[in-house]
């Protein structure tokens, strides 16, 4: 057991899997000698050699296509897309190829591959280093979408994703790489070391895909969150003194519908929070699922708290980010309804 931040936990997952599984290879921009712009792949090339951890050209469609070919061969590639904002050149290879390979070949080929990518704002990254494109992937049949919110889950989920026999897009909330940022941007962020989920086993373990976590129990309202917004939800509920039940989805597809249903049936209210733009965001899918399955338990409309339907503006980042003020107002309204 060691105390780790999310970067160290993700790094540890790579080390564990490359040690255990000779088929695991890692590729991406700046991930080799340098160890990645966020240091997630640090030490891999030194320990496992250039053939298993190598720098790629600046070619996201190439990176994904190469990973598809490698997985078709029988390797377990882990491809890093340096920022989720850069994933779009690889979109065709993800949507048309990776997602459909098992289906179109009737199982002749399957692709045990992971595409890792840091996403989300709150780092003054401007439009092209802040986006949350997860809903583009949850819409695609044949892709699993995973988003951890703490070091323990990050490592366990990444190992589970690498061991999974289907393609996984693994979004890493970069705002909380170094500490559980809770949306109160004027306060210093507590480092992970003080968080219980920073206690991370050194060896192999998994957090199963498709299982959410109830990170705070409550009776008044269910908050569905993932990534950075889990911490914003927890801090806001505490600040507002609201007895909210906070669910960290961890996997968006397949989503853990049982945990969601059980909670909403108990609380009778549901608020969904994500940093991504609102229209056709994953919150829309969650809202539809909740009303389809829990309608007669609901005492108020299902509410969404999200980023605005604009690009992520650089200087007005905190006016964009769905922080404690937006969430707090929405929570109070949902409880009054």
């Amino acid at each position, binding site marked *: 057991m060691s105390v780790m931040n999310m970067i160290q936990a993700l790094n540890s997952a790579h080390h564990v899997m490359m040690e255990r599984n000779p088929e695991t290879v890692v590729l991406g921009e700046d991930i080799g000698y340098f160890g990645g712009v966020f240091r997630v792949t640090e030490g891999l090339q030194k320990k496992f050699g250039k053939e298993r951890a190598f720098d790629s*050209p600046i070619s996201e469609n190439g990176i994904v296509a190469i990973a598809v070919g490698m997985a078709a061969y029988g390797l377990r590639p882990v491809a890093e897309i340096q920022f989720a904002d850069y994933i779009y050149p690889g979109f065709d290879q993800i949507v048309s190829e990776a997602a459909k390979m098992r289906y179109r*070949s*009737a199982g002749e*080929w399957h692709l045990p591959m992971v595409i890792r990518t840091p996403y989300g704002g709150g780092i003054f990254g401007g439009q092209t280093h802040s986006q949350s494109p997860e809903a583009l992937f949850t819409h695609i049949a044949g892709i699993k979408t995973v988003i951890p919110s703490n070091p323990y889950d990050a490592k366990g989920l990444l190992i589970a994703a690498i061991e999974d026999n289907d393609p996984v897009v693994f979004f890493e909330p970069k705002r909380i790489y170094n500490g559980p940022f809770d949306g109160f941007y004027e306060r210093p962020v507590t480092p992970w070391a003080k968080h219980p989920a920073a206690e991370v086993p050194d060896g192999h373990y998994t957090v199963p895909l498709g299982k959410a976590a109830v990170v705070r129990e409550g009776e008044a309202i269910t908050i569905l969150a993932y990534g950075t917004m889990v911490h914003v939800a927890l801090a806001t509920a505490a600040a507002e003194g609201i007895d909210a039940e906070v669910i960290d989805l961890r996997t968006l597809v397949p989503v853990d519908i049982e945990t969601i249903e059980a909670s909403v049936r108990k609380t009778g209210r549901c608020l969904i929070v994500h940093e991504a733009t609102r229209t056709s965001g994953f919150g829309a899918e969650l809202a539809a699922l909740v009303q389809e399955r829990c309608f007669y338990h609901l005492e108020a409309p299902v509410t969404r708290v999200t980023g605005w339907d604009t690009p992520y503006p650089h200087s007005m980042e905190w006016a964009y980010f769905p922080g404690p003020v937006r969430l707090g107002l929405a929570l109070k309204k949902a409880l009054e309804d």
Partner: protein
Amino acid sequence: MNKASERPNRPALSLYVPEPPARPGDEVDFSHIEIPAAGSVRRPDVAAPASDTHELVYSLVRVLDDDGRAVGPWDPKLDPGTLRRILRDMMLVRVFDDRMYRAQRQGKTSFYMKCTGEEAIAVAGAHALDRDDMCFPTYRQQGLLVARDYPLVQMMCQIYSNRGDALKGRQLPIMYASNAHGFFTISGNLATQFPQAVGWAMASAIRGDSRIAAGYIGDGSTAEGDFHAACTFAGVYRAPVVLNVVNNQWAISTFCGIAGGELTTFAARAVGYGIAGLRVDGNDALAVYAATRWAADRARSNLGPTLIEFFTYRVEGHSTSDDPSVYRPQNAGAAWPLGDPVARLRQHLVALGEWDDERHQAQLDQLDAEVRAAQKEAEKLGTLQSDPYLNIASMFEDVFEELPWHLREQQAQAIAEGEAKRR
């Protein structure tokens, strides 16, 4: 917006849009095509630096001359048995194409694509590769499967989407897949397979394997970003891959000039990536064999990729959904100056004294009977028209390894819907 009139001292700009040399109603015109004499292109050593091939990318490797003789340094010197096998496979592809084209016209399936005139590229290529090398084909390399003895009945069942379809009625006809035959699952999204072939080859190198990959792409889809990614990665990591551009001059109705074919050759792309490049007469089975073997030997020796342009002509329409007479002269294929690959190899075997008209006709009759028998077998398992693959539950399988809850629910709903329709 600035208008020309506001700057009278400058010439008005105009946009150049390439046009093919001939359109419907025009005489077929292949006068722009330069054809060097067979045997005139030198053959670099397999271990030569890539740059040593770069002057060859503007030429054309040819082995068979007009009299059917194999000449020059690229002659692969194949034994008569192998030559006859290549001829037989090409003939079989053609017979098969004709039967399946007809089946589509009879309404037994929705779609078919012939490879008439391009048989040598897949067939001779397959014989030059090792049996377990992995091919990443486009939709026009059915010859790879034929040359690797994939059962004709299986091909037909896929085309019919019937009960025997190994792909469970999911794929457009002719988009076969067989891992055991080294034939990667075909995608309708063009060019995607090209960098995948490179990834597969890189994986083979990482694992210290001895198998190589062969990717195929058309002239038109070299314009996709995936082509650039494939050449970049293949060059950078010296991937053990043969990158084949099948330049059949036409991308549906669009001539190769729209993909840059007027400006230079497709083989010349290799120069910019610093990889070996060859430009080869794609209607000359011996040249195809020799070039593929040269590139494969090179890849297998850790000397990196080769980009080969196979210069050929799409004799028929793009697919059964296409009518080429509306955008190019009639019978253009028959006028193609590099001839027909089957006729040329036949002529060569006859010249060697290893073949004659009687044997040719007998083989044609036998292949025809073989294909008809296979068709009969396949149709016992249904056609798209009469008895297609219908297993509603299976529609939800293979999206993931295991069925998640939402697909289980949708599966139950679809099954109930099927039952409701029957009532």
